[in-house]
């Protein structure tokens, strides 16, 4: 998928982004950098005012959340949107139950176990209410639900923000499994360790614009952070790079 210079509604953004299948792209940025706007545009919550989105080579428009889902773009929002009082099966199939007038509980339960097994998820039972599950397990259920529609691209908005150490590792494993299944993953995160641990590429946004793109193997946390905070884009750094350029020019 390619996003070419989309311009947001609630905040001016001008972002380029490319994601291939089987690739995890992390999007990092400080508050107000435009990450949320980008997620909203891709999930169809907000329509962009200009710019192009290409999916599988074709230009697409994503006017509604449903349109986004139909294209195969699934989004797991930070608040997960699960019903605490319903069990795992009911949550997975909420709004898309099998057999509306005589719910196919058995079919749905079997499908739930299939999904969770594919993700190697550790859920003790699918017949307990979501309230009984840990934060990591809830994240797993939310991701499993987004897989029901057989998406090609999955957007995870701060999946580890509220999790402990072990649960974070669980979710990161899950992200790797999604990649191994050939899905494109967009990972929005503030956590550099998670980003370095799981992403293939890091796209840094700052003040609504691209501010650097790195391959994870070739970049240090400090470099990413300075791109986020804008330390690479100020008078001092510009002057430093200007001098370096001048010295190179002088040397040749």
């Amino acid at each position, binding site marked *: 998928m390619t996003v070419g210079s989309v311009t947001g509604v609630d905040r001016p953004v001008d972002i380029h982004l490319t994601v291939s299948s089987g690739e995890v792209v992390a999007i990092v940025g400080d508050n107000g950098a435009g990450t949320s706007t980008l997620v909203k545009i891709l999930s169809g919550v907000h329509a962009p005012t200009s710019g192009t989105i290409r999916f599988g080579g074709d230009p697409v428009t994503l006017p509604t959340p449903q349109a986004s889902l139909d294209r195969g773009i699934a989004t797991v929002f930070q608040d997960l949107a699960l019903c605490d009082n*319903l069990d795992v099966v*009911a949550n997975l199939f909420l709004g*898309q139950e099998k057999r*509306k007038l005589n719910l196919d509980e058995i079919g749905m*339960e*079997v499908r739930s*176990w299939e999904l969770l097994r594919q993700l190697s998820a550790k859920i003790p039972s699918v017949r307990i209410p979501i*309230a009984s599950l840990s934060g990591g397990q809830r994240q797993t259920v939310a991701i499993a639900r987004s897989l029901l529609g057989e998406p090609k691209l999955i957007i995870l908005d701060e999946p580890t923000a509220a999790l402990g150490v072990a649960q974070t590792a669980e979710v990161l494993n899950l992200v790797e499994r999604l990649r191994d299944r050939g899905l494109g993953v967009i990972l929005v995160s503030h956590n550099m360790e998670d980003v370095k641990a799981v992403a293939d590429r890091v796209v840094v946004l700052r003040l609504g614009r691209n501010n650097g793109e790195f391959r994870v193997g070739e970049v240090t946390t400090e470099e990413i952070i300075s791109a986020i905070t804008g330390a690479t884009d100020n008078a001092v750094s510009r002057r430093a790079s200007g001098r370096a350029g001048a010295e190179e020019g002088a040397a040749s």
Partner: protein
Amino acid sequence: MTTAIPTDLQDERLRADTGLAGAARASLGRIRDGDLGLLPVIAGLIIIWTIFQILNPVFLSPRNLSDLLMQSAPVGVIALGIVFVLLVGEIDLSVGSISGLSAAIFAVQYVNNGLALPLAILLAVLTGAVIGWVYGQIYNRVGVPSFVISLAGLLGFLGLQLYVLGPDGTINIPFDSPLVLLGQLLYVPDWLAYALAAVTVAVFVVQRVAGARRRRAAGLSAPTIGVIVVQAAILAAVLVAAALYLYQASGVGWMFVFFVALVLVANYALTRTSWGRAFFAVGGNREAARRSGIRVRAIYTSAFIASATLAAVGGLLAAGRLSSAAQSSGAGDVNLNAIAAAVIGGTSLFGGRGSAFSALLGILVISSISSGLTLLNLDSSIRYMVTGAVVLIAVALDALARRSRSSHGRA
């Protein structure tokens, strides 16, 4: 792999609660964690019956219990409607007025204007449905809390009821009209009652066995035949004992059977259809329901329609029971009794938890208290105070169980 572990029991952290002992152990664990289900209301019912029986031996007589069931049906139907609005986390305080208005419309059309009985009933019930639809529109489009909408409705429709009844204030419904017969005289013959009990148990067993076989075929855990047989035996024993006892007097009235049938239909709708599932979802997390593609507004509207329609039906049954529609129809404690019945039965005021059966069991508690105090020659002043205390206990239990559930990690 003949002894394969069922798909849903492969996690090593699960206790394998299989067989009879396992089923008993699982229920005990649920209760300890605050997932009380229908247990408090059943325990409460037993306590109340024991106390009143000690105070007055007439209380548990077949005659009195038979009357008690008949007495329960009208407000029970109203309470069933309340379950729908409570499930989505809303409230309808005007069900009493709506039931009175429905009785008034029916009496005026049927008695004064000579309209055919089915048409008069249809008109009254449709009035309820339209009121519920209007509530839904106001709630969805203007955003007025249901508490306020229905408080306004409580006054407004009481006024409309008085207006419809006109200067006389009371309209008597002829004793030979089918509605009054249903409310006062029509009892299920004893052979049919036993047949109904047998059919109920048979349907229960067939459904459970078929369900268990399908689950096993799909590689899931399923209750063993032993568990099903024990459950069926308990069900059969309760039904047959109740029938044997009640048929020493007039037995079970058709009106009560109608109420139970409504409860069973509502239970199916709430637990086995996506429409019912949406009620729990909206009550549990409205935003999650909306993002799942559930039409949240339509669910709210249908909850208000269900509540007001069932209130209208309950009003008709009450009119049949009293053989009149009066200015006092649906007034007084009808509102509170209906809401109290749903809450006592275990439907949460906080939304997202409850069952259609809570209306049935809750109204039995309310009617038992009312009947017991009447037998003791205590007037309504005491009855109001005792009912008030019971409601408070029920809501406190709801709140405490909720706290226990959250500390034990159950919804």
